[in-house]
């Protein structure tokens, strides 16, 4: 609780991260990890057949990827860091401590990847014959390899967040890196990326080969075959991941029971994977059998299926993690499991460095005497709930209570009772981190939110005030008190 709290009350903090992250994953998987080996393979094939048309097509596809990955891809990559650091700085700080060297290596690999893609694109026309061309093709495959390595490192961190495995007892980088979810997830994502690249390449081929039906036929067939080869591997990887998810889920939930909602999602996951895969394979088959009849819109169908599948996959990944952001180590609200006893004894506000002031709109028609309590209620909400919930926007707390208690005036005692026991009723919710007084303040604030739909302002717009216990003067006084106590002891 050492950072001011960022909050988006309409979209929700999760929504912000989800939009940026899913866009980044789609670009990273489809246009970098999967596409670079495909482009290099097309270049190699053109060189082997001494057919310049393949070379030109590969260059055009690469150029599109180069533009998107170095602009939107790079921005969303940085955007993930920015948004996650804003929303949950504690989880990022913990992950950096565990994966410091892993991330450092990833950074080096990423820099290499950027240098390689620039070199690969800019030397395409210069290194076009003889040994220079062979060198250029090798450069392309090296780029594909480094793109994959960046993903392979980051996937370990994502797997660690789902289930850290033995890291909780043996806190070493190696144990964290080789967490139980790592390989199944990597085995799923790698063919998914290659398949997505095949679908995008098919679409771009249809755009770039309008004047050359023969090249179009052969290139569409090749893209169809590429998809067909990696689809079964994706199914195997998906099955492996699917079979590991319940173990991670059972380990994460203290009650050890799978919730109904999770069971539904888990069942849906396999249907989504099999259904999407069948759809993708049907398009790939059609492309192989009748390449000259593939309309330009057709690859968009499997692309939509892949986007849907990726989105669903990420959603299940998020759900499995709950109620933690780092399995069994830190709850989704950014509070460490080990810090709970202290906070539940002293209350959240006693350890909160900052307070996020109420705006005039948030105060609304509240009486001046009520404002201090509302302010404290808001601070409890910001610390305990705002990482996942909004006041009245997406995934709002008011929406949840409206579903449970209807539109009439809510009963504060019932709200408090629910908040105190929500983890037992819904194991994917973290236990309430504060004490009885915090519960009371939060219950009162919920009633205020029911009547006042003004958006809750985060620290970025309302500013912050420092908790009187944490001002420079207070800290100085506390320190001198501590020194005096030590002197007396001596």
């Amino acid at each position, binding site marked *: 609780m050492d950072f001011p709290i960022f909050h988006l009350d309409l979209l929700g903090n999760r929504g912000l991260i989800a939009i940026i992250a899913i866009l980044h994953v789609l670009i990273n998987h489809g246009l970098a990890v999967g596409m670079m080996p495909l482009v290099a393979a097309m270049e190699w094939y053109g060189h082997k057949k001494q057919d310049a048309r393949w070379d030109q097509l590969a260059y055009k596809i690469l150029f599109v990827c180069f533009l998107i990955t170095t602009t939107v891809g790079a921005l969303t990559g940085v955007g993930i860091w920015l948004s996650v650091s804003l929303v949950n700085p504690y989880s990022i700080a913990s992950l950096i401590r565990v994966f410091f060297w892993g991330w450092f290596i990833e950074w080096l690999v990423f820099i290499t990847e950027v240098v390689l893609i620039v070199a690969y694109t800019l030397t395409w026309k210069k290194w076009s014959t003889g040994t220079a061309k062979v060198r250029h093709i090798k450069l392309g495959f090296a780029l594909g390899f480094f793109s994959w390595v960046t993903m392979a490192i980051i996937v370990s961190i994502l797997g660690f967040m789902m289930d850290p495995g033995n890291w909780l007892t043996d806190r070493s980088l190696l144990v964290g890196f080789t967490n139980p979810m790592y390989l199944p997830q990597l085995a799923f994502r790698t063919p998914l990326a290659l398949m997505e690249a095949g679908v995008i390449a098919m679409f771009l081929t249809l755009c770039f080969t309008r004047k050359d039906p023969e090249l179009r036929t052969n290139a569409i*067939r090749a893209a169809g075959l590429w998809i067909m*080869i990696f*689809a079964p591997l994706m199914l195997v990887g998906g099955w492996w991941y699917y079979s590991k998810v319940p173990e991670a889920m059972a380990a994460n939930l203290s009650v050890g029971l799978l919730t109904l909602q999770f069971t539904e999602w888990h069942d849906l996951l396999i249907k989504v994977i099999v259904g999407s895969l*069948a759809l993708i394979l049907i398009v790939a088959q059609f492309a*192989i059998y*009748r390449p000259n009849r593939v309309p330009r819109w057709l690859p968009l169908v499997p692309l939509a299926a892949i986007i849907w599948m990726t989105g669903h996959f990420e959603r299940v990944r998020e759900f499995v993690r709950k109620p933690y952001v780092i399995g069994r180590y830190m709850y989704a609200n950014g509070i460490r499991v080990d810090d709970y006893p202290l906070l539940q004894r002293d209350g959240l506000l006693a350890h909160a460095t900052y307070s996020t002031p109420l705006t005039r709109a948030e105060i609304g028609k509240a009486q001046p005497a009520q404002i201090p309590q509302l302010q404290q209620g808001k601070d409890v909400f910001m610390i305990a709930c705002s990482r996942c919930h909004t006041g009245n926007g997406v995934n709002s707390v008011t929406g949840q209570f409206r579903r449970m208690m209807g539109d009439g005036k809510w009963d504060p005692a019932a709200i408090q009772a629910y908040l105190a026991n929500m983890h037992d009723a819904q194991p994917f919710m973290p236990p309430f981190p504060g004490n009885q007084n915090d519960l009371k303040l939060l219950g009162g604030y919920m009633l205020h939110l029911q009547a006042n739909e003004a958006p809750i302002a985060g620290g970025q717009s309302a500013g912050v005030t420092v908790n009187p216990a944490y001002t420079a003067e207070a800290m100085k006084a506390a320190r001198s008190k501590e020194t005096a106590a030590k002197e007396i002891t001596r």
Partner: protein
Amino acid sequence: MYRLARWLGERPYRSIALNVVMLTALLALIGQPQLFLMIGSIMIAVLALAGLRGTLARWRRSRDASHPYELAYLWAPGATAIILAGLGLWLILGAEAGSPSYILGTIFFGFEAWLLVLLGADLRANRAEIVEAR
């Protein structure tokens, strides 16, 4: 009717494809998954054998088919079609007649059987090119 007959006559495989689609539709209408499985399996086996014969002949004739890309191009489409037809039969077997899974399985099966007819026809007509014009 005359137009249909002329259209069917233009490509010999069209009559086979039409028969395959009609048989699939008939099996779906009967609504007995066990019967569908039995006759459907025979249908796929016959089409697969015809495709296998053509593929083997093509493989023997083609020198380039030793390269992984050409090998994949030669074998993967037919194998995938057989597997997906099997998936269609599996969906049909585990579902009640008329249910969404049954309909989906029927569509899968019919589509894959149709593709196997195309594959066999392409191989017979020597149109299933392994590599682009050499």
